[in-house]
């Protein structure tokens, strides 16, 4: 089965088959990371534009490494050093890049929907590396791969998500993905960050006020970071958060004995997660990173590889009318 996907904008619109295909295709790229020589010529001559309008280290490096190992070149745009500071619009920035003929765009943006906006207006594949509070599809895919590898299957797990779920695109993408595989979700965090509306995202989602309750019977625990840079309302005092919601070894014992602990990173040790849990045998954080590379290589291979679509040159074909 070929993927037949032009863009990867989110998990919500993917089928189980497409997700399974991507996870299966990541496997040879996992094996590839163990080669002494980690350089392919598969995407030689291709260019991937990495447009990170929101700061990111791990995701950006992961995509850059994935492209490089496939033999592709990258164009790098980063928020701090970009012309956005001078007032250029998203569309103009992307069109400028497109005029340099990349074979794919990876985009992270603070506005939900930005990748879809771009995909509708360019002729090349777009991969969403995180948009606002909407989705972070590659994170959910690498989380799923991690779970599937450790637990030998992806269906029907009890998944607890801890933290600021309201502002988390990682949580949303995970809810969509694991939801398609029959997961039962328990959401837990400070009340203002776990609103009732989240239960509408799927049939098996419940909120629980206390962490002890939330961890009982969990097969997978996804710990989210307290996002001090994104929220505008005054955040909870650290001590209060730790008391109510930190994942400690004692609390983790309430979950299944072989429960997995996932964290999208970066972790704030001592805040949402205790050192012992972060470094313990149930923690999957390092595998998540390795799997992220494999997932992104598989996606770049399938989406930006191959024959170029018959695209008209943007400068010639597009009108300059506002969209």
């Amino acid at each position, binding site marked *: 089965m070929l993927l037949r996907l032009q863009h990867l904008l989110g998990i919500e619109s993917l089928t189980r088959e497409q997700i399974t295909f991507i996870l299966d295709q990541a496997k040879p790229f996992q094996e590839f990371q163990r080669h002494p020589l980690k350089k*392919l*010529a*598969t995407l030689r001559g291709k260019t991937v534009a990495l447009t990170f309008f929101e700061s990111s280290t791990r995701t950006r490096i992961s995509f850059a490494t994935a492209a490089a190992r496939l033999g592709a070149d990258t164009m790098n745009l980063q928020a701090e050093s970009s012309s956005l500071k001078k007032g250029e619009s998203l569309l103009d920035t992307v069109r400028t890049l497109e005029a340099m003929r990349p074979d794919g765009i990876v985009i992270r943006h603070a506005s939900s929907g930005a990748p879809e906006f771009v995909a509708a207006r360019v002729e090349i594949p777009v991969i969403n590396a995180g948009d606002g509070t909407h989705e972070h599809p590659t994170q959910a895919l690498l989380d799923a791969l991690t779970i599937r590898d450790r637990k030998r299957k992806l269906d029907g797990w009890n998944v607890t998500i801890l933290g600021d779920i309201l502002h988390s695109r990682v949580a949303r993408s995970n809810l969509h993905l694991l939801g398609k595989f029959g997961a039962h979700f328990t959401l837990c965090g400070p009340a203002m960050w776990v609103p009732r509306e989240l239960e509408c995202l799927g049939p098996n989602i419940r909120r629980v006020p206390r962490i002890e309750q939330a961890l009982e019977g969990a097969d997978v625990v996804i710990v989210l970071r307290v996002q001090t840079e994104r929220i505008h309302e005054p955040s909870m005092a650290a001590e209060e958060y730790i008391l109510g919601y930190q994942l400690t070894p004692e609390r983790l014992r309430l979950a299944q004995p072989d429960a997995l602990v996932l964290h999208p990173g970066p972790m704030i040790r001592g805040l949402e997660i205790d050192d012992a849990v972060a470094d313990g045998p149930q923690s999957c954080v390092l595998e998540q990173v390795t799997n992220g590379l494999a997932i992104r290589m598989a996606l770049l291979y399938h989406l930006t*590889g191959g*024959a170029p679509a018959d695209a008209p040159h943007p400068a010639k074909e597009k009108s300059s009318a506002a969209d």
Partner: protein
Amino acid sequence: MRVVEKRQLLSAEEISRTLQRMAHEIVEKSGGTKDLVLIGVRRRGVPLSQRLARIIKESARVDVPVGTLDITLYRDDLSTISWQPVVQSTEIEFPVDDRDVVLVDDVLYTGRTIRAAMNGLFDLGRPRRIRLCVLIDRGHRELPVEASFVGRHVQTTDTEIVECRLQEVDNEERVMLVDRVA
């Protein structure tokens, strides 16, 4: 594309005898099996390499390591096809450095698959030697590639296709020559 079978090249029995013969040749012409490894090129090179290893084990009492190599990522024609082919895994559980590698495939044609296979191998290390073992050599080389161990040489035209059917992959066991029909 319609194909019509022109003739059978190898029956199940003949495949078996040919593999027996090639396995013995490999052992004879390797000057010792200490560093010998067999690497099957996906797809049909894989069961062939496993059968060869089994024959060598039964007759020469030597355990020759076997690996599988997927060449998809090393193909030279990816930019000409719009949707990317599915990648399978390469499974080579032993180091390749200084080994006496015998690549195994079903049909040798243009030689491009073997070029890709060698690229894949060099990503893993530096073999002492690489030789090629194929069931059928059908000519029409486009690159300077040759097989050291050949089951059968077959003259073919450009439109003809050599189809290998193996039990493990196709639930059938024979090699046919087919031709494309307008």
